[in-house]
């Protein structure tokens, strides 16, 4: 990639309503600046985040994903974030299997009071994904998903 | 116990007695010191006052030589050298700096060597041994003086507390001495200004000596040749500043321990001090 045309990755952030969404609001209220690449999708809790959705995002051409919720023990719903974390461990191996660099998924915790952490998280993720380059193997994931859906229905 | 040894320039010259006492107690404590081959000067204050790359390259060569020799741990008795080596090691964690220095040295350097000062060596390899081998308890009330370079910058050296450090006091207690609680443990003695600004050294060292004497210390215990020479050799200038003669001796921690271990005063180089040591 030549230096003039910087690669602008597409990054989706799946965040929980109570901690990270509020934290990102605080980033705004504090007028801290960050890159425009990341767009937030709001969830009630990271426990809600279905990792199939992450795969679908890759299949659809996302270059990177941020998943962020409350700190361990601070979950608004007691334990949703623990479930999310446990699933994430299993999900890593699936990603691996499909040749998606696990570094494309940034798993983090940002509390409602950590506005500056959110800005840092976004900027670091953008830099990391930029370094990894665009994600190109989405067809592979798409194929897998199609198969998965068929299996699921069968 | 085998361990690498970097004496540095002062220990071969103006602070021979520090070297002598380190070697003497190492022998008694069964610590085998292996001197780094063909070592060079660390550059001391001069190098880092004048040029940063020079100040990193000189210590880097020393450590590269030690690595080449297969040493994994090196004791550096001079606090100034210890500080320079540790800080360089820290600075060279930076990739670009390391690259640049390797280019200058044309020697491989991986920064893996453990650099320790004399107090750490004694704590690590001698503490129990010393206690067992004390033959003539060092029954004196002394002021342990740490100076700047042994404890600062704390973020890099990670050695003892910055204000009111304790490790030297602990060692003195092990050999039967008592230490005073005093205010100038880590105040600067004037460091590298010994020759260029003797007036300032006299003022700063004078404050240190006075506080120790006022609180009834019989001697100052040090672990740095620069501190020792400022406090000892500059006594003429100091006495002029503080307007009273001060005869409190300044001895190395290794000498104090050596005395307790029954080593002869001469072997410990105690005769080489300017202020007569009668302990």
């Amino acid at each position, binding site marked *: 990639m030549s230096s003039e045309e910087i690669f602008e990755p*597409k990054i*989706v952030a799946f965040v929980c*309503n*109570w*901690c990270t969404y*509020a934290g*990102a*609001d*605080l*980033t*705004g*209220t504090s*007028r*801290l*600046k960050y890159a*425009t690449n990341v*767009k*937030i*999708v*709001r*969830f*009630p*809790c990271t*426990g*809600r*985040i*279905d*990792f199939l*959705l992450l795969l*679908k*995002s890759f299949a*659809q*051409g*996302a270059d990177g994903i941020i998943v962020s919720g409350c700190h361990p*023990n*601070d*979950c*608004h*719903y*007691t*334990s*949703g974030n623990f*479930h*999310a974390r446990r*699933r994430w461990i299993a999900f890593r191996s699936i990603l691996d299997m499909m040749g998606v660099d696990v570094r494309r998924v940034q798993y983090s915790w940002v*509390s*409602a*009071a*950590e506005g500056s952490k959110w*800005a840092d998280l976004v900027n670091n993720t953008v830099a990391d994904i930029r370094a990894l380059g665009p994600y190109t193997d989405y067809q592979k994931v798409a194929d897998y998903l199609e198969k998965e859906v068929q299996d*699921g229905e069968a | 116990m085998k361990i690498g040894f970097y004496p540095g320039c002062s220990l071969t010259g103006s602070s021979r007695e520090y070297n002598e006492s380190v070697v003497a107690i190492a022998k008694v404590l069964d610590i085998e010191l292996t001197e780094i081959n063909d070592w060079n000067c660390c550059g001391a204050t001069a190098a880092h006052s004048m040029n940063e790359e020079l100040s990193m390259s000189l210590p880097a060569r020393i450590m590269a030589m030690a690595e080449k020799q297969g040493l994994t741990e090196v004791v550096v008795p001079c606090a100034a050298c210890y500080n320079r080596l540790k800080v360089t090691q820290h600075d060279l964690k930076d990739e670009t700096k390391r690259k640049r220095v390797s280019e200058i040295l044309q020697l491989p350097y991986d920064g893996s060597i453990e650099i320790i000062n004399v107090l750490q060596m004694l704590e690590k390899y001698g503490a129990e041994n010393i206690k067992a081998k004390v033959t003539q308890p060092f029954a004196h009330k002394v002021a342990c003086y740490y100076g700047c370079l042994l404890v600062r910058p704390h973020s890099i050296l990670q050695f003892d*507390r*910055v*204000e*009111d450090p304790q490790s030297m006091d602990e060692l003195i207690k092990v050999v039967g001495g008592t230490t005073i*609680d005093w*205010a100038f443990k880590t105040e600067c003695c004037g460091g590298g200004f010994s020759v260029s600004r003797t007036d300032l050294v006299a003022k700063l060292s004078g404050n240190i000596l006075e*506080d120790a004497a*006022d*609180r009834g210390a019989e001697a100052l215990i040090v672990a740095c040749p620069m501190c020792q020479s400022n406090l000892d050799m500059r006594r003429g200038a100091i006495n002029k500043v503080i307007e009273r003669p001060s005869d409190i001796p300044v001895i190395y921690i290794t000498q104090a321990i050596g005395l307790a271990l029954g080593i002869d005063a001469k072997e410990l180089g105690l005769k080489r001090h300017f202020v007569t040591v009668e302990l």
Partner: protein
Amino acid sequence: MSKIGVFICHCGENISATVDVERVAREIGGMEGVAHAIDYKYMCSDPGQTFIKEAVKKYDLDGVVVGACSPRMHEPTFRRACAEAGLNPYLCEMANLREHCSWVHEKGEETTEKAIDLVKMLVEKVKKNNPLESIKVPVTKRALVIGGGIAGIQASLDIANTGHKVILIERDPSIGGHMSQLSETFPTLDCSQCILTPRMVEVAQHPNIKLYTYAELESLEGFIGNFTAKIRLKAKSVNYSTCTGCGACIQKCPVKKIPSEFNAGLGTRTAIYVPFPQAVPNKPVIDRVNCNYYKRGACKICEKTCQVGSIEWDKEDEIISEEVGAVVLATGFDVKGTDFFPEYGYGKYKDVLTGLQFERLASASGPTFGEIRRPSDGAIPKKIVFIACAGSRDPAKGIPYCSKICCMYTAKHAMLYQHKVHDGESTVFYMDIRAGGKNYEEFVRRAIEEDTVNYVRGRVARVYEKNGKLIVKGVDTLLGGEQVEIEADMVVLATAGVANCGSEQLAQKLHVSYDPYHFFAEAHPKLKPVETNTAGIFLAGACQAPKDIPETVGMASGAAVKVAALFSNNELVREPIIAVVNRLAPPLYSTCVGCFMCETACPYNAIEHEEIKARDGSLIRTIARVNSGLCQGCGTCVAFCRSKSIDIQGYTNEQVYAEVMSLLND
């Protein structure tokens, strides 16, 4: 095809300064399914809301997207507007163009494009939204107040005076908090005890307040209007129903050298003790860690002394359960010690004190009966140095924030000292004097001008002891950095006000957020200072950040009003953001296969088993059903269900999928 209305807000210039709002409206207007798109200066204003209402009617909209501030700010506003126009409120969504876009990016093409993407995302979501009915739940009109400092006291009294029941729990043997430890209070110098004690007594006697001292919250379950609190009543070893508070046991207890918490370590107390003379309740507890009987099995002198036989040796902690509808957190703050500041003496010099210790010295109920005397030798200090910001505004060794109260209490201390020791000299080393408050600046000026307190602008580098004096090495930066050395008899550090220890665990029990310093986080820094992010839990006093008494009391009354407002309803309306298991026509009934993975995932035990029976009563199959009273809408079950049979209203698979796809598709 959908008919969606899109309303883009300028927020004055907050959005329009960096986002080309006209272009956003224009481009969105061209989207499939968008019937109407406009931009306007202030959407939340009256005319702004009217635009929405009129458009709903005029274009017969079946969905609304407002591109404005955070939904955490105005979602209720716009949903209400839609409802007033006859549109189901859950068909209205907000795109966060302010907090997540205009405020965090520079003006430019990308920023506008991001704004467009964000609106599009919500338009795609709204297309998949379903009308929902809000859920009504009953309200338990009883409040739990945690912490019995002035904040907890004030909140309890205010709530109780609206006619509602209050349960107040206090960790220590007495209520009163830090205020009970203070000597006199700025800015008026009235005696702290004199104004506090009547309120403490009022709490104890109020028919609507149930006070549990020596008690802590064990757990809190449930949700707004319907919490269940488990409270641990720590064993006091004294039967309060018979104890008369005569104090005879205390007189006789042989263990007398325990540092008194109330006197900040400057005085001592016995093992059976009442923390201070005006304590409420004024009955003792036995400190089991220090009592001879509990330690070694012998003594029981107190038992022999007690005329009414009130000592209870074998009493265990008791856990009780209380149903409450709202919680006020008022657990206050803590004061850092002197020992984290190596250069000021590592806590090893007895005459280097914290401000709180100085309060005890200056207090008539303190260890010196109000005379300022040195802890080391009891001498009256002739020279005293106060060091402001000792730990505050100090990222290296302390905390970066300003503790807010110490400038004022330092001025007060210096003033009290000058009033008590007429020939004394006091010096305050300060960086800035922060005296914003009614009569505060006047108070500090009085200290300087009338009471001749010497204010020196600069920090102190170190303090050391020599010949019984504390040598203070400071600087006067207003004299170009001239070093100042003072031989003092006493040094008082205005140490930082920090979060109470254990506040993090408490926050986790309550599921409220806290800031990086472990103070509880308010829901909005300006507009919701007493609310937390968890509905039904409110904050009062210094547990939110260090603050002085007037501010604490104001906040406590604010929290009380919030509670009273909540209790003014018989029912609460809850958002219908809950999970549902799909139901289909027979013979399928549902795609749910009855694996009950969802049940294992649900933190609220909201998944029930539903048996589907044939007409003859025979069981066809068992599927999952969500108890809408218990479900909190976390959605964890959804992620666990392999057959995608359970979904969460408001965040359905379809909805989030539509959002993500809209983001990635262009």
